[in-house]
């Protein structure tokens, strides 16, 4: 489904990784591991097509993503470090405007159900500025739940989440995998996923792929 071919990434004159190749199949969960500054975020942004690699390319369904953006983005959702939440919009409006970028118009019932699932029931009309940072991250969880994407790319999805939040994220990933979806993620927190998982190692150990 997703294929990463001989990527090389340079940031501020520093070579982060090179000759990096791996692929993500359907119903596969892949963790990108590595110490701080090893290029995990840069790699995810390259996979999203937000950042251009120094060399190599990212293929989606056998086509380079740069020539196939619309199809790729209709099937992919990305969460980065930043919350994407507007302080002056309510929770419901925030979710809606995130879904609007994907041209998804869903009924209030569906959105409220998703909000309830991530623990934000009855918060629909609360403005973003009144939320804690954990609650803001939960809005993003509701967003990826509703995004109807086959590929999830999650950069540190557990940031600011409490114990229940972590468990929720884990169960969401498992559900997504069950439904045939794929996940690529990074995390510094322990994520206990009860499934087969591959990992790609960045940094000091030279990009060896380990199968667990």
């Amino acid at each position, binding site marked *: 489904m997703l294929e990463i071919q001989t990527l090389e990434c*340079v*940031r*501020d*004159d*520093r070579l982060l990784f090179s000759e990096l190749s791996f692929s993500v199949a359907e119903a596969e969960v892949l963790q990108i591991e590595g110490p701080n500054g090893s290029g995990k975020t840069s790699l995810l942004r390259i996979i999203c097509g937000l950042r*251009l690699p*120094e060399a190599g390319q990212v293929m989606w369904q056998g086509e380079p993503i740069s020539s196939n953006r619309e199809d790729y983005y209709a099937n992919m959702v990305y969460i980065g470090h930043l919350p994407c939440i507007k302080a002056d919009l309510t929770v419901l409006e925030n979710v809606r405007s995130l879904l609007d970028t994907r041209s998804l118009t869903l009924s209030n019932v569906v959105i409220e159900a998703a909000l309830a699932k991530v623990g934000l029931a009855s918060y629909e009309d609360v403005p973003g500025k009144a939320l804690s940072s954990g609650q803001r991250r939960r809005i993003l969880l509701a967003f990826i739940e509703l995004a109807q994407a086959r590929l999830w790319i999650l950069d540190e999805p557990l940031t600011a989440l409490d114990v229940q939040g972590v468990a929720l994220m884990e169960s969401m990933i498992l559900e997504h995998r069950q439904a045939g979806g794929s996940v690529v993620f990074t995390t510094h927190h322990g994520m206990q996923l009860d499934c087969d998982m591959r990992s790609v190692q960045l940094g000091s150990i030279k990009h060896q792929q380990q199968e667990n």
Partner: protein
Amino acid sequence: MSAPLIKWFTVSALLIGLYGLYLGLFVAPTDYQQGESYRIIFIHVPAAWMSLFIYMVMAISSGIGIIWQIRLADMVAAASAPIGASFTFIALVTGALWGKPMWGAYWVWDARLTSELILLFLYFGYMALQSAIEDQRSADKASGLLAIVGVVNIPIIHYSVEWWNTLHQGATVAKFDKPSMHIDMLIPLLLMAVAFKLFYAAVVLVRTRNEALYRDRNRRWVRELIEKL
């Protein structure tokens, strides 16, 4: 790498330039209207041509850099900017010095002069953006895009003299059928233009080479080169 080319360009630029200057300043006849003062034309006009020419080179190589991801093209653009800005500045200054005796004013806000000044600002903007962005590759791309957007200004400068009734004279040499210039004046002018182009080629090669070495200063081939020295 490019050393023989640079040497060749420098030497020929010098020779042709000196010969052109000699012809222009001592051999070419005086002008029927402007007397001796017109001789500044041999600096002013080639410099003004270069200011536009270098901008076009910059925009085109930036376009190549953005579309085909060729680093060398980006480096040529980055290396050209200060040279182009200098030529623009020379064209403006010599124009002002010429304008005072001829028109009676150093500076006039007519279309040609104003747009040439805008061109100078475009060069400055390019260089400022280039140096403000730390990541070298995005700096190249961002300033390259700016150069391309600025191209809309080039036809305005070039045609301003024809579109508007300006104080600045019309085109002298670009009329292919019959340049309105006496042959003894035309030859040194064209020689100077060739010399300026060769000078630019030499300088841009030197600067691009330096740029390439500097950017790859952490790469192995540069390290090895330094160790050899």
